[in-house]
């Protein structure tokens, strides 16, 4: 199921006006192809998480990561591997469905462990949260009934296990001493006389 040309990049970004513009502008400017982009809040106030699916050869991912990391508003960047993370997207699919077809449609939806969240005499809205390929498969199976409209969120992902995409913390006192020792200014210190 692994697609060789898409890469899932996750970035923790400052929740500030313009940050989406900065990221989108970077992708446009450097000619990176975005397949999907999802933004939402995180466990930490003031930090949003962007999950970006990038299309391109593996060599491009390194540049995407580094160029993203260069943006001041981007705090942390990580590429998630498909095997070591959970990747999901959500789709809402409005399918043509007369009352006599409901049993069939519900069967299909049940097989994919989706649910029906709205119903009318001639339609149902199917909701499914799953990996991209599963969603694609459900859509193919619903297509014969007639898909009236559809929306997908784009991929979101988290690393499996206890590992997290950490926010870069301020320097510890120890690190600060080390940096002073090697002649580097401690992080955050103004590089000029601030008196």
């Amino acid at each position, binding site marked *: 199921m692994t697609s060789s040309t898409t890469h899932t990049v996750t970035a923790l*970004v*400052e929740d500030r*006006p*313009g940050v989406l*513009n*900065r990221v989108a*502008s*970077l992708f446009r*400017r450097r000619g990176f192809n975005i397949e999907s982009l999802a933004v939402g809040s995180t466990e930490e106030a003031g930090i949003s998480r962007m999950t970006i699916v990038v299309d391109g050869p593996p*060599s491009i991912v*390194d*540049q995407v990561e*580094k*160029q993203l*990391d*260069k*943006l*001041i*508003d*981007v*705090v*942390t960047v990580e590429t998630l591997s498909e095997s070591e993370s959970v990747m999901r997207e959500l789709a809402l699919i409005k399918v043509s469905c007369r009352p006599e077809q409901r049993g069939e449609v519900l069967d299909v939806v049940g097989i994919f462990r989706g649910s029906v969240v709205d119903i009318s005499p001639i339609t149902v809205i199917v909701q499914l949260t799953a990996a991209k390929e599963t969603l694609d498969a459900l859509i193919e199976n619903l297509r014969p009934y007639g898909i009236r409209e559809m929306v997908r969120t784009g991929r979101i992902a988290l690393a499996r296990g206890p590992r997290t995409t950490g*926010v*870069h*913390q*301020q320097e510890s006192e120890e690190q600060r001493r080390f*940096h002073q020792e*090697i*002649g*580097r*200014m*401690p*992080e*955050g*210190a*103004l*590089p*000029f*006389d*601030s*008196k």
Partner: protein
Amino acid sequence: MAMMSGADIVLESLKRLGVDTVFGYPGGAVLPLYDRFPAHPEIHHVLVRHEQAAGHAADGYARASGRLGVALATSGPGATNLVTAITNAQMDSIPTLFITGNVTRALIGRDGFQEADITGITMPTVKHNYLVMQAQDIAHTIAEAAYLATTGRKGAVHVDIPKDVFIEQADFEWPERVSVRGYRIPGKASPESVRHAAAIIDAAERPVILAGHGILQAEASEELRRFAERGGIPILNTLLGLGGIPQDHALAYGMMGMHGSYWANHTASNADVIIGLGMRMDDRALGRFADMNPTAKIVHVDIDPAEHGKNLFTIAPVVGDVKQVLPQLTDAIQKQSHVPWIRWIDTLRNEHRHSMSVPSGTDLTMQYVVSKIAEFAGREAIFTTGVGQHQMWAAQFMDISRPRQFITSGGLGTMGFEVPAAMGAQAACRDRQVWTICGDGGFQMTFQEIATMVDEALPVKMAIMNNGFLGMVRQWQELFHNDNYVSVAMSQPDFVKIAEAYGIRGIRVTDQSQVEDAIREAAAHPGPVIVDFQVVPEENVWPMVPAGASLSETIEGPVPVTR
């Protein structure tokens, strides 16, 4: 804590940063700020004649002094006029702070008079930018902006402030430190990356250093010299790296690239290990990437990890500040001398020196003029250039041997940079002689700044290389477009009369025999001077790597080109 207006906070913040000079141009949105300049006499405002020039002057100020350059403009057209200068400074990683006014907060987004979405416009061309929506945010924003501009890979930072925020009262609170959690400043390199790089360097038989602008920015000339001497490694410079090592150093082999020397380009093409130091593997320095010595192993030291592997596959990327990484590398490598390799380069240089020498004869050539200016002005002088043939000849023949001696628009290639940049350099270094080598085209883009020089008593010596052509464009039309000269010949005004109109000295030089006297006279004159050197009209810069060719395809002189 004292309550003060946003305007006072801006100026107080600049003072805390040690800023003594601001290049700017007033207008509606920044009127409240200008209103407060007289209350802060420690900051000298230089009134330019065009905002672009304010930006280039701040850029030249920063390049000449190593300090933060600051430019100021009003909203709308004032701000958009800064964009070229912002982009230019960012491309060459110059520590600069650009402050613009904007329409009042209530009018933002309503397409009001003189509104431009300037933070939207500058976003892709700055290191970072800000729109400050409250007076209480001004101080820490300016501290953060200056911090970002002057640390790590330096660059242009832009702060946009609506008019009513200049008027709003707030507590002035200057931060002790700034906190930017998405920003890291590389210092020393990781020991593993240094060991890996050192092993590759030790195993090299034909290593070469490509020393870039980073050496100057990090003030790492001494570290570069020690590293090269220990490893016995020849040094080539990029255009912006000129001055990182004295040209008379035994291991210095001059500039590589599109108009680098034949021997430098062939040294880069024949090396088995290429060590890039504080440079960004630019196409003008390296030629066609695919054929840039594909068998060489590349060691690349840069403070910006995004430069590693961007253009060329890099086997040994080293992330760090070149001033701290070079001592690490020097300690890690073996002492070597690479005698056969150095002899090979020396032989090549002896055989090909002719293709990069000032033409003999009595013609008044740009090569002759720039070499004479360098000879008379000496190493303590500062030279700025525009972009084109005169820039390349200046790079080739001005014997650039001191950091911050040579100020030129490298990445963006901005014509018209030369005059305002020289003005900024002179404002930063009033005791140094500043010469600007101008093209006749570029000069006419920004020479309105002579008026500023007169106001500010900045005695810049402007040497116009007047050949009546956009020389480099003409050279490309000759070589690559079958002599089809289109929109490239220019009628020129009487530059001596322009000098007179501005009330400065103007000197015309039409013959080689007048050059030395003219340079002496210009240097001795206490004010700004225009010297109109009427040079031979159609001369080409050699050697040359045609656009899209590899460095090994360097052409030494006029031969039929079939590309």
